[in-house]
């Protein structure tokens, strides 16, 4: 009688642990799928190439403006029309 009771307890503990194992595995699997999505989106905001190339473009504009300062100062309308030439004004002054 005592032996049966102990076996029942063991079976219950093992069943409970198996359910826990299945639940944890499902959580890990779905968490990993969500992780790929979340980290993919996070990665899309931290693409190093995009940021550095934009900075490079700004730098090249200002350098060019330094060599052609007269032309830029004479045409004030074009400077106001776009942001890249707006940077060029600082080089011309």
């Amino acid at each position: 009688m005592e032996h049966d009771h102990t076996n029942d307890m063991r079976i219950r503990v093992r069943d409970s642990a198996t359910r826990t194992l299945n639940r944890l595995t499902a959580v890990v699997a779905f968490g990993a799928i969500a992780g790929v999505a979340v980290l993919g989106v996070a990665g899309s905001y931290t693409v190093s190439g995009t940021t550095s190339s934009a900075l490079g473009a700004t730098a090249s504009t200002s350098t060019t403006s330094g060599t052609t300062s007269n032309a830029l100062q004479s045409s004030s309308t074009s400077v106001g029309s776009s942001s890249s030439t707006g940077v060029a004004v600082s080089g011309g002054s």
Partner: protein
Amino acid sequence: MNNTILWYTTRGAGAVSLVLLSAVVVLGVLSTLRYESPTWPRFLTTGLHRNIALTAVVFLALHIVTAVVDPFTHLGWLTAVVPFSSYYRTFWLGLGTIAFELLLAITVTSLVRGFIGHGTWRAIHWLAYASWPIAVMHGLGTGTDTWSVWMLAIDAVCFVAVLAAVAARLLTTSPDPLAADRARFRERVSRKTPR
């Protein structure tokens, strides 16, 4: 499929694979320590270790397939199989190939453990201690997001977790209650075995 989505998936799956691999290593070390409690029997550790390892292989496959089929990278399937055959970042991608092949060897031998014997399985399973750091080096060397704050945080957490588990393994003596009996048995068997 959009090339950009493939690229983001490659990066996301790579980071997730690192997390999963680190969890597999930690659980593997915990299973050797024979950790258990009334609510956490030992087979839960080994079962979770096995299941997460298989999940890691799936996500690693996703990482590799999306990287190879991405037409922008032109890596080719040979890069995924032959180490150091890539034209792009040859060394760092080669490390990734080696880490993947070691993991594949560990997984396959674990699935056929009953056929190859415990000794062979155990010897090959030790490769896990090489596979994980090689995978980490691959990520640090060629990862686009290596220096992002979130990726550095993931790397740090994985590194500390694995280091703590390995330290616990080295500092803790085997709690195997039959360790002394096993040693005595092996000694007697080796004495009786004719040379």
